[in-house]
């Protein structure tokens, strides 16, 4: 059988196209080429590289720089592709592409789903654990950076800050890091802790409180965030998440700007539910250790919840599921042994804070 077909040949020296006849010998894995002038060439499959455009093949040979063999023949295209595939000369990209649109789509969707699962369930614990490797000085640096910008924008209540410091001095928070307390004048019901140990309380939240145990509860809760380095953990979780997303879109820029942006908003970062519960539970322990009524924590929640009927205070909206957290507190209190001693000094300081 005569398998000779016609093609066009560009020799890489001039742009002229020459007619050429091609004999495909698949047992020897070679193409025998013969030009009109009678010159003949042998191209070995292992030297070849192919681009296919439907039935049109453009074949190039690494030993014949720039030369192109163009063949437009359906039968040849199929046979040649099979032979190249057998020689493993077809790269992974082309082979995947030849699987067809629907199969690739299925694979792509599977990969996407597994990335989402990783993003939701595997990444956060890894990121949080790696946050533990960051030195304490990092916490301080970030915290100092944020406190400067916040205190530039808002007014410190000097008198109340003095009282709050006295109040906190009466308590033992079990913290390893020295804590700083500041009262800021604001109509916003909010309080937050920064990783450098700075705890900021807004005047509006003080106004909501009825007894000193609520304030102890709030301070203990915020101190626990500092103790567990929650904001640094959230920061590294967000960062890891962003890195993964940027990988998805092959974009590596902007990680630094994200770090800066997140750091700026550190005081309004929303903690995850586990972090809030962790802070609640440890805060409760602090209350019990200081012989303060643990129901102060429950009362604090109730007070803030009541407030939320009129407007949603930030501290509630960013601290999710207050009701569940309240029930959880009640359950733990029932299981605990505790002694409550009414502290006149704390009461007195609390009264002056309320003025």
């Amino acid at each position, binding site marked *: 059988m005569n398998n000779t077909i016609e093609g066009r040949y560009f020799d890489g020296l*001039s*742009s*002229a196209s020459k007619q050429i006849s091609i004999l495909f010998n698949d047992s020897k894995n070679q193409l025998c080429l013969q030009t009109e002038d009678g010159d003949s060439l042998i191209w070995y499959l292992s030297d070849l590289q192919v681009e296919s455009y439907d039935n049109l093949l453009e074949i190039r040979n690494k030993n014949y720089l*720039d030369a192109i063999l163009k063949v437009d023949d359906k039968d040849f295209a199929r046979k040649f592709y099979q032979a190249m595939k057998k020689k493993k000369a077809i790269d992974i990209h082309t082979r*995947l*592409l030849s699987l067809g649109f629907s199969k690739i789509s299925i694979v792509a969707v599977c990969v996407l789903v597994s990335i989402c699962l990783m993003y939701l369930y595997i990444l956060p614990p890894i990121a949080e654990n790696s946050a533990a490797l960051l030195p304490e000085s990092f916490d301080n640096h970030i915290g100092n950076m944020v406190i400067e910008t916040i205190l530039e924008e808002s007014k410190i209540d000097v008198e109340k800050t003095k009282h709050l410091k006295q109040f906190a001095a009466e308590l033992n928070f079990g913290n390893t890091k020295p804590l700083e307390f500041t009262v800021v004048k604001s109509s916003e019901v909010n309080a937050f802790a920064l990783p450098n140990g700075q705890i900021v309380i807004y005047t509006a939240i003080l106004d909501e409180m009825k007894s000193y145990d609520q304030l102890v509860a709030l301070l203990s809760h915020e101190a626990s965030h500092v103790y567990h380095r929650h904001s640094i953990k959230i920061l590294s979780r967000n960062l890891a998440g962003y890195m993964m997303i940027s990988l998805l879109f*092959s974009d590596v820029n902007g990680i630094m700007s994200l770090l800066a942006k997140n750091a700026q908003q550190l005081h309004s970062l929303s903690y995850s539910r586990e972090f809030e519960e962790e802070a609640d539970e440890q805060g409760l322990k602090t209350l019990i250790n200081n012989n303060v009524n643990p129901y102060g924590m429950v009362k604090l929640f109730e007070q803030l919840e009541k407030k939320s009927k009129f407007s949603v205070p930030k501290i509630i909206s960013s601290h999710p599921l207050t009701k569940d957290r309240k029930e959880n507190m009640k359950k733990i209190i029932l299981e605990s042994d505790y002694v409550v001693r009414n502290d006149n000094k704390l009461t007195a300081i609390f009264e002056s804070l309320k003025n």
Partner: protein
Amino acid sequence: MEKQIVETATKTQNYSLEFFGKGSEYFGIMIVNWLLTIITLGLYYPWARAKKLRYIYGQTALNNERFHFSGTGKEMFLGFLKVILLYIVTVFVSALITFVVGPIVGGLFLYLVILAAIPIAVHGSLRYKMSRTSYRSIRLGYRGNRNELVKNFFKWIFFTIITLGIYGSWLAMNLRRFTHRHIRYGDIEFSNDSDGFDWFLLNLKGYFLTIITLGIYMFWWQRDIFNYYWNNLKMKKGEQNITCSSIATGGSFFELLIGNLAIVVFTLGLGLPWAYIRTQKFVCDNVKMEGNINFDKIQQTEEEYTDALGEDAMDFLDIEVS
């Protein structure tokens, strides 16, 4: 016999530029690229880029013969590594200078290196991309002198700074003229007659009319830019030549850009490959070539070139040269 040669030399040729790419095919390539890039944690990126370029070049045809991009992922990967290395060295040296001499000198050094990196990247990228582009087995090539470009670039930047940016129009066109005039396709030389003043007026007019018409003139401004780019491109081979021109209209730009916007928005970005293909098709449909150079008779003139540095320096700095 002699008469015949003269005849072929001046005979007007027909040129047709076509783009055969399909959105669905390009989408498939992008999906596979994406998959392999994810699985390799981003390492496949240069190979993905090579695949993309190879498809786009291969689907572009002049007189029914396709272009070819022969660059490989490996070349671009090595180029990327070199860029990273140079970056580290630069940062290290500037830190050393800061430490030994002082922060002002160290900072100045860093700025100078970054500034010099732009023309060097333009040079390298063009050299690489042109050397990897071929048509009918003949390579393109860029023969500009790097040091000359760097020297000119510093001069243009200096004028731009002292004119508070106004010279920027001249900078852009000078750069375009310089680079285009050093491009070769076999024994064909490219030339470009762009002028900074024309470019300045074009953009001034576009800017103000766009504001006055509340943005509607934007499409006509785009048309003017596109037409200016192409109308100034010429090719020359001895006595023979080709002039390029664009037939794009403001209306067709409106259709292209609004259509692309709709495709991308309504598919949540998944339609991006279709938008890209539409744009390529638009370019090929609107650029016309006239002249008497016969593309059957071009001689290979460019030497082989094996440095992929520039290509990735460009990716790194995110500058596009067209």
